[in-house]
C-alpha cells in the first residue's frame, strides 16, 4: 500500500493509528485520580509531541542517514516560525500559507547554510552549523528586534494589516485557523470519569506528521536514501563509484531543513508566538539528543526520543511537593516524609536531573537508543519461535 512494502505499510498504519487515537492513549488515567498527573492527552502536549516528532524525523534524515551532525538545526525551525508569523501578520491567519512559506523560507536558509557548511565534514561541519545558528539567535535577539520582536518575540496583533482577512469583529482577537476552523477549538468527550480532548490543531499537526513520516519512509527506502547511507558508510568508495556525494548531502541537509521549517511553522500555527530562544544552541542540542535517545538512523526512534523528552519536560516538571505528599499520604508520616524527601530531588524543579540520568542510562545500556530497547523486548518474546527473523544488523533501518 502507498508504494511501500508490507513491513513499512504496517509501520505506517501503526503510527497512524497511534497518532489518531492519541487523545485516548495518552489519557489512560481517570480525571481526578492521583495518576491523572501523568496524563498527556491535552492539546498543547499532543501538539508538541507531533511537532517535535517532525523536527526529529527531519533531523534524522540528515544525521541518521549521512552521519553529518548538524548543531544548528534550531535555526531553521526558528526561521520557519518567524516566516509563518509574518504571513499571519501580513496576509491571513489561515495556517496554510503560513506553513507553506515557513517550509520554503527554511529550505532556502538551509540551502545557504548547507552550501557553506558542507565544505567541511566531521566536527568542523558541526561547528560551522553551530556558528550559523548562534549568529541567527544573537541577531534575532538584539539588532534584528524590529523584525523578530527580540526578547518579547512576535504575536499577532489587532492592528496587523492581514490583507486577505476581513476586519475582526469588535472584541475578537486574531486566531490561527484552517479556513475558519480554529486551531484552538476542541471536541471534548467524557466517558465515565475519563475525559478525552480532540483538538483541531492537534489533528492538523498529526496529519502533517504522518505525511512527514510517510515521506521519511519513502526516502529511507529509495536509492537516494541508500546513497545517503553510503555517504555515512564510506565516502571514499562513494566518490570512486562515480557518485558525487556533495549534492546528495546538500539535498539531505535542505530536506531536513524544510522539515525543521515545517515544525517551526506548525508551532506558530498551534500557538501563535515566536521567540528567539527557539534558535539557541540548546534547542539545536535538544533535537540531537532526541534523535540519539530514540535511535539515530531508525525510522521511529526520533519520534520516540522527541516524545520522551517533551513528556519529561511537561509532565515531570509539574509535579510539586504537595502532589508528592498526596501520593504518599496513605503511609505513616515518617515514611511519607522520607519517601517525599527521596523522590523530590528528581521531579518538579529537579526534572533536569532525571533527564540527565535517563540520557546516561539509555546510552550506556541501550547503545541503539530506545528502539534497541524495544527490539530487545521483542526478541525476548520471539525467542521461542524458530529463527524466523535473521538479525539483519544495521543493514536495513530498524523500526
Amino acid at each position, binding site marked *: 500500500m502507498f508504494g511501500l512494502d508490507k513491513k513499512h505499510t504496517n509501520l505506517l498504519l501503526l503510527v497512524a493509528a497511534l497518532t489518531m487515537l492519541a487523545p485516548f492513549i495518552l489519557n489512560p488515567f481517570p480525571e481526578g485520580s492521583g495518576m491523572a498527573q501523568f496524563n498527556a492527552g491535552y*492539546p*498543547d502536549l499532543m501538539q508538541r509531541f507531533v511537532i517535535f516528532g517532525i523536527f526529529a524525523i527531519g533531523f534524522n534524515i540528515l544525521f541518521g542517514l549521512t552521519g553529518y551532525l548538524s548543531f544548528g538545526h534550531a535555526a531553521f525551525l526558528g526561521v520557519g516560525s518567524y516566516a509563518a508569523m509574518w504571513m499571519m501578520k501580513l496576509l491571513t491567519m489561515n495556517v496554510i500559507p503560513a506553513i507553506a512559506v515557513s517550509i520554503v523560507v527554511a529550505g532556502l536558509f538551509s540551502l545557504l547554510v548547507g552550501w557553506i557548511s558542507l565544505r567541511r565534514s566531521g566536527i568542523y561541519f558541526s561547528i560551522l552549523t553551530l556558528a550559523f545558528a548562534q549568529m541567527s539567535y544573537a541577531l534575532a535577539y538584539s539588532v534584528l528586534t524590529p523584525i523578530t520582536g527580540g526578547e518579547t518575540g512576535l504575536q499577532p496583533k*489587532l492592528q496587523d494589516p492581514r490583507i486577505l482577512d476581513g476586519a475582526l469583529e469588535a*472584541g475578537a482577537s486574531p*486566531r490561527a485557523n484552517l479556513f475558519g476552523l480554529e486551531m484552538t477549538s476542541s471536541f471534548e468527550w467524557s466517558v*465515565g470519569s475519563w475525559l478525552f480532548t480532540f483538538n483541531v490543531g492537534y489533528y492538523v499537526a498529526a496529519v502533517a506528521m504522518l505525511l512527514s513520516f510517510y515521506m521519511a519512509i519513502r526516502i529511507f527506502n529509495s536509492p537516494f536514501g541508500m546513497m545517503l547511507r553510503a555517504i555515512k558508510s564510506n565516502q571514499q568508495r562513494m566518490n570512486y563509484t562515480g557518485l558525487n556525494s556533495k549534492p546528495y548531502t546538500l539535498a539531505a541537509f535542505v530536506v531536513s531543513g524544510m522539515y525543521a521549517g515545517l515544525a517551526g511553522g506548525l508551532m506558530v500555527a498551534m500557538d*501563535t508566538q515566536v521567540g528567539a530562544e527557539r534558535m539557541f544552541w540548546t534547542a539545536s542540542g535538544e533535537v540531537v539528543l532526541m534523535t540519539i535517545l530514540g535511535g539515530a538512523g531508525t525510522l521511529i526512534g526520533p519520534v520516540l526520543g522527541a516524545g520522551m523528552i517533551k513528556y519529561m*519536560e511537561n509532565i515531570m516538571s509539574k509535579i510539586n511537593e504537595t502532589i508528592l505528599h498526596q501520593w504518599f499520604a496513605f503511609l505513616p508520616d515518617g515514611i511519607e516524609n522520607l519517601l517525599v524527601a527521596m523522590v523530590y530531588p528528581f521531579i518538579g*524543579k529537579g526534572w533536569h536531573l532525571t533527564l540527565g540520568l535517563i540520557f546516561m542510562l539509555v546510552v550506556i545500556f541501550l547503545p541503539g537508543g530506545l528502539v534497541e530497547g524495544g527490539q530487545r523486548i521483542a526478541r525476548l518474546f520471539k525467542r521461542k519461535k524458530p529463527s524466523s527473523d535473521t538479525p539483519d544488523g544495521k543493514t536495513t533501518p530498524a523500526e
Partner: protein
Amino acid sequence: MSKTNLTRRGLIKTGAVAGAAGLTLPTYLRADGHSGFTNAPTGSTVTLGFNVPQSGPYADEGADELRAYELAVEHLNGGGDGGLMNTFSSKALQGNGILGKKVEYVTGDTQTKSDAARASARSMIEKDGAVMITGGSSSGVAVAVQALCQEAGVIFMAGLTHSNDTTGKDKKANGFRHFFNSYMSGAALAPILANNYGTERKAYHLTADYNWGYTTEEAVRNSTEAMGWETVAAVKTPLTQTDFSSYIAPVLQSGADVLVLNHYGGNMVNSLTNAVQFGLREKQVNGKNFEIVVPLYSRLMAKGAGANVKGIFGSTNWHWSLQDEGSKAFVQSFGTKYGFPPSQAAHTCYVQALLYADAVERAGSFNPCAVGEALSDFQFDGMGNGPTLYRGEDHQCFKDVLVVKGKENPTSEFDLLEIVEITPVSQVTYDASIFGGELGACNPGA
C-alpha cells in the same frame, strides 16, 4: 448540560452528579460564541496556575515566588496569620477561599524561555483547568504568557517583569502588572542621583542588547538628561556575555564619571563585579568620585554580586525593611513560615494573588471580564507600597517606587540593601499612551 459547564472539571463533576451511565456526547468547544468563560470553576474548588522559573538562572527567584504563592493560598483558605489580608484596604476576602471555593494550585516551570513558559501555561489551562495564570521573572516570558492568556480567555497576573512593553506596546486586556517598570525606575532614580552626585555628570551606559535593556536605557537617559546630565556613550552588550571587561575597560578613557549598568540578573551580577574589579569606584574623574548606578535591583542579584553592591544606587519595587503596616505584616508572615525575609519578587507575586482573589470576590464571578473590570482603576492600600492605583488604561499599578543603595555593613545575608528614598507615585506617573500598544477587549474564552 448547561453551557457554562464546558470545562474539564465542570464536565467531570456534572457527569458524576448526573450519574448518566458515564457517557456524554462529545462537546464542541470554540474559543468564543459561548456565554461562559474558560475553565469556570463549578465544584467546591478553584485552581490557580503558578508559572515560575524552576530551572535555569532565575530558579532561586522562582522558588521565592512559589513560596509567596503557597503562602497566599494558605491565607486565602483561612490558614496562617492571614498576612496582608489584615492590612489590605479592601475587606472582601473572608479567608474562606475565593467565592467560597477552596483555592488549589498547580505549578509549572517557565525555564525563563517563552516557549517553555507558554507550554507550561497551556498545560495548566488545558489540563488542570486553571482559571488564572501568574508568575514569571522576565519580560519576554511575561509578554508571551500574557498574549497566551488573552487568547485562551484567562486572567494573567504578571510576576516580576520590568520592561515598559508588558503594559506598554504589548499590553493585553486580560493581563495585569503590579510590578513597576523601566520608566518608573528612571523617573524615581534621577532626582536622587542629582541630589547625591550633582547635576554636572557624564554618564556612560552599558545596556543589555534586548527590549528590556533598550527601554531601561531610554528611561534613565531621558530622566537624567532632564536633570542636566550628559550621556557620553551607550554601548550594547550581548545577553550571553559573561565577562564584561572589554566593555568596562574603555569607560574611564571616555571621560565619563558615572557608569549606568542597564543589566538584569546574571548580566548585572557580572558587569557590576567586573566594574568594581577595575577599581572604577576608587577613581576620581573630572574632580569627582566615579560612581556606578544599577537601575533595577533585586535582592538575589545583590546577593550574587556580594560586597560589590555597597553604596550603589538602584530602584526596587519593594523591600522587606519598609516599616508600613502592610510590609511588616507580610515580612512577619513570610519570615515565620520560611525563616528568612521575602524578596521583592515574592512580594509582588503574593500581592498579585491576593489582588486577583479580591477582585473575584468584589466582582462576584471568576469571569475574566468581570475580574478585569473589578481590577481596572481599583484603588487600594495596605499592601506595602502605600496607596496604589491599578490603572484601567494599561493595567499597570501606580505606586511609590523605592530608591535603594547597597548597605555598607550588612548584618545578614538578606540585609543587603537600604532604602534611600520612597519616591512618591506622582513623580513616576506617566501618560498611558506614550508606549503605544492596544489593550483590546477582554476575552472570557469559551
